[in-house]
């Protein structure tokens, strides 16, 4: 009731202003007239009666204002007054308003853009139900830290029912499946165990998911479709369930469709059952495992349980590394991966840019406040309190920052699209082309808070400064000389110094990343990537469960490829030289047998792989077509492996035995003789040193190994061309389709593109930080220039006097330059200190350069000093051109 009355009173006051005024006027008028009537009746003349009535009533205007106040809402009213006043004040100086708003819009826009990516990737919860109970299984051992698991480990995890509600295995990437038909295409299908849909809470839209029977060996060929594939291939027909889908020329029964909202990890068009053997000693690590903790169980408790159960696992499988541990980690962290660090660094960097923009605007405000000193002095002489003046000035600055924020939101929206256009492939969680990134309440709230905070941040300092003026002296001071006082100068100097030091920090970060980028591109990868085309093919079907079938396809295919005009040579492999992820234990024959003696990378290739990539054969010979099944086993090793294992003698001619204890997949692996040493290539990525590695001919691998590869990942076809590789693509796809009897090729890329992708994250970081650094440099330069130009203008008279007293132009110039450069140098010194402390946060992004790289720490400050010198030189030159007569006469 009372609140309603209050609201009615406020509504009347603010929305029916003129009506209220009229009514008040009428009420007062009738009062006075009635009084006059009464007085007239008491015997006064009408004119006298009316005069008396008005006197008795008292100050008409005063009571009207008191009535207004009595209606409440004083704060709102003051605020509205301030806003109106601020609006008028800003409209009177449009140049200032435009400069300030655009600086802020840039700063806030950049922050909004980076934040909306951070929001999507790091802050938004996973879309899975109970996402905080979802974990990923890790198996760090003494030889490798890996998130890949083998079947016995999976079964071991499944048995820990006291802590896990469900455990599910899924393909790391998946082999891909060839959809047969008129237009064959490769579909992205991944193998999962039947628990996958429960762990991920996948909503079943039609039909059902796998039964445990279907997920057992010989459980039949069944498939669950994603919503997208169902729409694309079946037009969303509800009768799709029960139909069959032909994958690699074999029919699979469609048993269900998963709902549209499900975000698959990893990305997939469809899901097929793994059909693991219930009892297995296959030690091949080829899939990932995720689990759902039981309600109330923490990650720590689950890890304690896994640790306690580990000895039993090692007793059951005596061949395993007893140092091998088992652990779980939050699935969310694993999905986000190392994107977290770089995003947070970018957010920090863009925050610094905003701080610099704030300092610049604060500087502008200080200048403006100087010009308005008399205005404030007059206002306080008329009774405005200091708080009132500060709040008036803050209203102005918050209005500026909110205007900047609104523009910034728009800029941020454009910025985010630009960001995605240049962002590396594989930022997690951003959806198809960043579709998942948008403006939501978090982004809006962020922008709002940032806008208000910046408004207060850059506004408070000048406001307090302005309100502190000494009334008496300001009013007496002539207007054009005010504001050169010591305190004013100090405040602005502090701002300029902080701008310079912040800009230096950003520039040093950018320079370190540029050095990293250059270093990465300067790395000789160990092979020649030009004019090489890579493409993938999924080997589906029984034929490719045997080495002979795979070898036959590769021989046919290469013969056809080599016959294409323009093709220099072709080859096949399961890995590209820049990224080899398979590794194998082995023994060196003739040395005492020891457990876990040797373990390093290994890959199988066809003949031609080395010549195609121009990987040098340092000694010995390359594989030939004669190194086939049944022929004596052979292997090539790289230089790193030779140096590590045969530091003092010749590895060529030595015999090795691979894959003992790995399980049935390596049954039939022959003893191999080392026939050559090849040059190292950066097989773990350009930023990493070359790891020891062994190569074997694909034709000589055991059947189990061939089958495993056909099931877990696609094969690479590789072609070196004489000219532009793109021109032979149609011929290549056609020949491979014929050779494989209808399989399509997918992901056709030049090797140069593949290399570009591998350093995309670094280039992205470098590009962003360089943009921020340059913006910071420009802002800081404008800051110094503005300060010096203003101070020269204010001191024209002083310069004139100095010159009249005999100072020459050089002295004057030196005076101004030194004044400005002193600030810049202090800023540089502080910035170097800060950068020393902060560059360690980007240490993990650096390659080939130390976080305290002396070249960077010397060159960047010099660049900044040079820019600062230009910025102070211009005003200094102007100061030295002052005509003493004119300067003195102007007073």
């Amino acid at each position, binding site marked *: 009731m009372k609140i309603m009355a*209050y609201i009615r009173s406020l509504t009347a006051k603010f929305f029916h202003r003129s009506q209220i005024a009229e009514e008040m006027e*009428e009420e007062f008028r009738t009062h006075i007239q009635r009084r006059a009537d009464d007085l007239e009746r008491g015997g006064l003349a009408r004119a006298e009666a009316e005069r008396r009535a008005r006197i008795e009533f008292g100050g008409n205007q005063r009571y009207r204002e008191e009535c207004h106040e009595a209606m409440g809402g004083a704060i709102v009213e003051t605020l509205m007054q301030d806003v109106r006043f601020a609006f008028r004040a800003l409209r009177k100086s449009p140049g200032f308003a435009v400069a300030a708003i655009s600086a802020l819009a840039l700063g806030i826009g950049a922050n909004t853009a980076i934040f909306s990516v951070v929001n999507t990737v790091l802050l938004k919860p996973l879309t899975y139900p109970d996402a905080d109970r979802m974990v990923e299984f890790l198996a760090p051992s003494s030889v490798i830290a890996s998130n890949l698991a083998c079947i016995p480990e999976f079964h071991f995890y499944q048995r820990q029912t006291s802590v896990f509600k469900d455990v599910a295995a899924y393909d790391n990437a998946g082999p891909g499946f060839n959809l047969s038909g008129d237009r064959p295409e490769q579909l992205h299908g991944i193998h999962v165990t039947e628990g996958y849909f429960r762990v991920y809470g996948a909503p079943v839209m039609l039909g059902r998911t796998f039964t445990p029977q279907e997920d057992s060996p010989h459980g039949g060929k069944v498939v669950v479709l994603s919503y997208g594939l169902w729409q694309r291939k079946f037009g969303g027909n509800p009768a799709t369930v029960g139909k069959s889908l032909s994958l690699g020329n074999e029919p699979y029964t469609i048993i269900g469709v998963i709902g549209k909202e499900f975000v698959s990890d990893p990305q997939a068009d469809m899901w097929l059952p793994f059909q693991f053997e219930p009892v297995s000693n296959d030690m091949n690590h080829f899939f990932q495992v995720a689990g759902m903790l039981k309600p109330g169980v923490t990650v720590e408790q689950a890890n304690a349980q896994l640790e306690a159960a580990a000895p039993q696992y090692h007793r059951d499988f005596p061949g395993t590394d007893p140092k091998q541990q088992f652990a779980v980690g939050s699935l969310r962290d694993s999905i986000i991966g190392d994107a977290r660090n770089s995003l947070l660094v970018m957010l920090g960097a863009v925050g610094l840019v905003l701080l610099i923009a704030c300092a610049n605007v604060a500087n502008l405000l200080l200048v403006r406040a100087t010009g308005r000193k008399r205005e404030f002095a007059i206002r306080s002489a008329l009774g405005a309190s200091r708080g009132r003046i500060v709040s008036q000035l803050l209203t102005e600055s918050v209005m500026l920052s909110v205007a900047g924020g609104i523009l910034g939101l728009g800029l941020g929206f454009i910025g985010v699209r630009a960001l995605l256009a240049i962002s590396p492939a594989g930022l997690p969680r951003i959806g198809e082309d960043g579709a998942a990134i948008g403006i939501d309440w978090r982004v809006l709230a962020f922008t709002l808070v940032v806008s208000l905070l910046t408004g207060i941040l850059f506004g408070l300092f000048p406001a307090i400064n302005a309100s502190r003026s000494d009334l008496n002296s300001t009013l007496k001071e002539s207007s054009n000389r005010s504001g050169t006082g010591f305190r004013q100068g100090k405040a602005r100097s502090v701002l300029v110094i902080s701008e310079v030091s912040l800009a230096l920090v950003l520039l040093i970060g950018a320079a370190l990343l540029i050095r990293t980028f250059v270093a990465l591109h300067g790395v000789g990868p160990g092979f020649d990537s030009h004019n090489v085309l890579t493409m993938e093919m999924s080997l589906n079907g029984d034929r490719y469960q045997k080495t002979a079938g795979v070898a036959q396809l590769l021989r046919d295919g290469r013969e056809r490829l080599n016959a294409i005009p323009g093709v220099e040579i072709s080859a096949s492999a399961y890995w590209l030289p820049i990224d080899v992820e398979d590794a194998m234990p082995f023994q060196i024959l003739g040395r005492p047998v020891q457990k876990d003696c040797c373990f390093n990378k290994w890959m199988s290739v066809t003949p031609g792989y080395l010549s195609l990539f121009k990987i040098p054969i340092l000694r010995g010979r390359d594989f030939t077509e004669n190194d086939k099944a049944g022929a004596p086993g052979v292997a090539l090793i790289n230089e790193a492996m030779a140096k590590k294992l045969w530091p003092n003698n010749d590895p060529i001619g030595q015999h090795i035995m691979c894959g003992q204890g790995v399980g049935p997949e390596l049954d039939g692996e022959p003893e191999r003789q080392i026939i050559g040493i090849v040059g190292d290539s950066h097989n773990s990525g350009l930023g990493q040193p070359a790891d020891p590695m062994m190569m074997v001919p694909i034709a000589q691998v055991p059947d189990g190994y061939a089958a495993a590869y056909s099931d877990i990942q696609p094969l690479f076809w590789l072609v070196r061309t004489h000219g532009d590789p793109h021109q032979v693509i149609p011929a290549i796809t056609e020949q491979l389709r014929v050779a494989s009897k209808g399989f399509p090729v997918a992901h056709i890329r030049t090797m140069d593109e593949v290399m570009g992708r591998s350093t995309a994250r670094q280039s992205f970081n470098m590009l962003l930080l360089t943009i921020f650094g340059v913006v910071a440099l420009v802002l800081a330069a404008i800051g110094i220039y503005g300060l010096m130009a203003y101070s020269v203008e204010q001191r024209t008279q002083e310069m004139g006097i100095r010159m009249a007293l005999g100072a020459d132009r050089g002295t004057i110039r030196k005076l101004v330059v030194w004044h400005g450069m002193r600030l810049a140098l202090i800023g540089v010194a502080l910035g170097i200190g800060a950068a020393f402390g902060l560059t360690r946060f980007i240490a993990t992004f650096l390659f080939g350069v130390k976080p305290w790289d002396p070249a960077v720490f010397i060159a960047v400050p010099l660049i900044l000093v040079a820019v600062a010198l230009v910025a102070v030189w211009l005003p200094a030159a102007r100061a030295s051109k002052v005509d003493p007569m004119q300067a003195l006469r102007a007073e």
Partner: protein
Amino acid sequence: MDQAQILPGTLDLLILKAVSLGPLHGYGILLRIGQITNSALLIEQGALYPALFRLVRQGLLRASWGVSENNRRAKFYELTAAGRKRFREETAGWNRLATAMATALAARPEEI
């Protein structure tokens, strides 16, 4: 006739009292107060209005435009339920204060 300066805070109570006897317009309230206090209190006429606006905002009075006894348009004030309640509370409070003050001031040395 001597008039006493009105005590701070008592104007609101006087207005509530005046209006509790029936809806009145501003000038009417002034006359009614003069009448019930025998014109013993000095009230600056204009000062009545801020008090009226404040009481309306507090939800104690309701204002509405109507026609007065001599056919002139006027804004009438009347008590709301909350106003009536407040009037009772304030009256009781005032009476307690007045009694206490009267007793205190009437005290003589021999009574202590």
